[in-house]
């Protein structure tokens, strides 16, 4: 979105991601989406009298991993704090979070080449760990709110950006990039439908290019990437129209309504929240074990944007191809294995981008689980290169390997998909084609030599792609030059 009426939006995001652990943040309850309500609960996450929290070390490690990938400064010592408020799905009446001493501060996420999306890097203000709340269902039973505490206590990382985003599109692009990074890091599933990735935004507008501070509003309930973009566009436009009409924006929380495509102030003029934060007395200081940060740093996978750069530099791939191949760790890993085994990155890239991704989409499986080992695909590429298989035939071989785990050799053998270069076999097909196309034969013989391609195509079709193109050309030329 470009500045309108000379105003530009100023957007900051607050993102909650569920950390991919087996058990909850402060108790040993299993983490699972979609289990029957209130079955994944224990004294701790039910907030029973007398229950106490114990920190899940794995959750901390995952949060450290995310923080390092976002170039944050990770603090050796941080402090849990209680955020006090009443809500039916908040069992203890407070959320264990972090407040004035978070786990990590001051990072950034590279946002290259997004043109109008704003400044190159988006600064990360802080990253901290906390526990999720349960779920309140307001529509399931007439007149009642129903509470399910399976999600209560699931570990979360809260990531807060500086207000560095200058358009709804930039916010969407940033979130996409962040999600990609977190998936790469295996820190979170980042599934917006299942709620493992949630985003709120702060929006204000100001005269383009100035750094005037203006009143911001908070926007909640944006449940997909496109809703995020629409909601932010709506809210920024609302601010601009208020301000350019001489009004003032009120500081409030807006709830996005996807059905109506509008954001409305949250009902009931919520009493200004007073969370009464104080250090969580049930938990001593969170101290990172010596060497944890450097160990996690050493174990960080190559991040998507680093991969893109390497794919263009090392393999000489076009930027677009490099982006597609780095979209997930699965595809990137598969591509690199094929490229390595085949010794031909260009061919590997074409095969993975076209055939493997098509099969993956069709079957809803990651490419690594298609049943085609990278070595097998590499072998297939080799057979095309040395002329043993036509590329049409090779594609057939590939798709017959998918889901079966058969090797190239097995498929060729069992399906009879060899390349035909025997002149006897080729002559049978040529004969048939010439007989059914006498006019074209005559025209060719009268000197219309470009018809050769027509005959090659016809024979190829008859052979279902099995004819060896070079050999076919030879035999065809001689057949056509023969007089009857």
């Amino acid at each position, binding site marked *: 979105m470009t500045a309108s009426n000379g105003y530009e939006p100023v957007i900051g995001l607050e993102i909650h991601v569920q950390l991919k652990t087996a058990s909850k943040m402060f108790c040993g309850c299993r983490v699972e989406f979609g289990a029957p309500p*209130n079955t994944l609960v224990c004294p701790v996450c039910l907030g029973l009298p007398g229950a106490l929290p114990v920190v899940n070390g794995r959750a*901390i490690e995952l949060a450290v991993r995310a923080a390092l990938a976002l170039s944050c400064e990770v603090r050796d010592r941080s402090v849990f704090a209680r955020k006090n408020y009443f809500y039916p799905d908040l069992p203890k009446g407070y959320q264990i979070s972090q407040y004035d001493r978070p786990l990590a501060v001051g990072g950034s996420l590279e946002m290259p080449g997004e043109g109008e999306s704003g400044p190159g890097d988006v600064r990360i203000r802080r990253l901290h760990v906390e526990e999720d709340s349960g779920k309140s269902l307001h529509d399931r039973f007439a007149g009642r709110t129903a509470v399910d505490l399976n999600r209560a206590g699931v570990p979360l990382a809260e990531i807060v950006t500086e207000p560095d985003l200058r358009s709804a599109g930039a916010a969407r692009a940033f979130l996409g990039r962040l999600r990609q990074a977190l998936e790469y890091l295996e820190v979170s599933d980042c599934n917006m439908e299942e709620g493992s990735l949630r985003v709120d935004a702060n929006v204000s507008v100001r005269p383009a290019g100035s750094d005037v501070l203006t009143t911001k509003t908070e926007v909640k309930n944006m449940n997909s990437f496109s809703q995020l973009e629409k909601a932010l566009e709506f809210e920024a436009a609302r601010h601009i129209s208020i301000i350019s009409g001489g009004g003032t924006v009120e500081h409030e929380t807006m709830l996005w309504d996807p059905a109506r495509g509008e954001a409305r102030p949250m009902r009931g003029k919520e009493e200004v929240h007073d969370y009464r934060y104080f250090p969580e007395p049930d938990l001593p200081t969170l101290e990172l074990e010596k060497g944890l940060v450097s160990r996690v740093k050493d174990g960080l996978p190559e991040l998507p944007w680093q991969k893109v750069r390497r794919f263009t530099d090392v393999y000489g791939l076009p930027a677009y191809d490099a982006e597609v191949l780095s979209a997930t760790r699965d595809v990137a890993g598969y591509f690199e294995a094929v490229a390595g085994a085949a010794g031909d990155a260009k061919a590997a890239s074409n095969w993975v981008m076209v055939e493997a991704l098509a099969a993956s989409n069709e079957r809803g499986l990651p490419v690594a689980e298609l049943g085609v080992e990278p070595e097998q695909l590499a072998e297939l590429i080799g057979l095309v290169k040395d002329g043993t298989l036509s590329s049409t035939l090779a594609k057939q071989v590939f798709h017959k390997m998918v889901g079966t785990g058969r090797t190239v050799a097995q498929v060729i053998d069992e399906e009879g998909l060899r390349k035909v270069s025997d002149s006897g076999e080729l002559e049978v097909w040529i004969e048939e084609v010439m007989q059914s196309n006498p006019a074209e034969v005559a025209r060719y013989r009268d000197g219309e030599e470009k018809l050769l391609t027509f005959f090659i195509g016809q024979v190829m079709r008859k052979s279902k792609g099995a004819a060896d193109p070079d050999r076919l050309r030879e035999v065809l030329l001689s057949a056509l030059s023969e007089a009857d």
Partner: protein
Amino acid sequence: MTIDRTTIEKVMKLARLELDDTEIERLTRDCQAILGYFEVIRELDRGGVPPAGALERAAPLREDLADADPLERPVEAMAPEWRDGYFLLPRLAAMDAEVEEDDAAG
């Protein structure tokens, strides 16, 4: 350090306590007396002492295992209202079109 009735009423809301008039009156008086007694602590304002904070030692970390302390009785045995596996309560007014309430999601 003192507290008036208006503040008491504000804090009541924050603490989700319903009190009748007599209680509010008495509480205001009690709180004033108690806070008056706590005045002594102001003497410490000189000197810039850092507050005692979280326990200095390191929090123990547990392994990421599904080893929750089991419940020896079903959850519904203690629930004031329960249906189909859910805890129930009167519908949150913030989600209701008709009722005004100052109870909002945090």
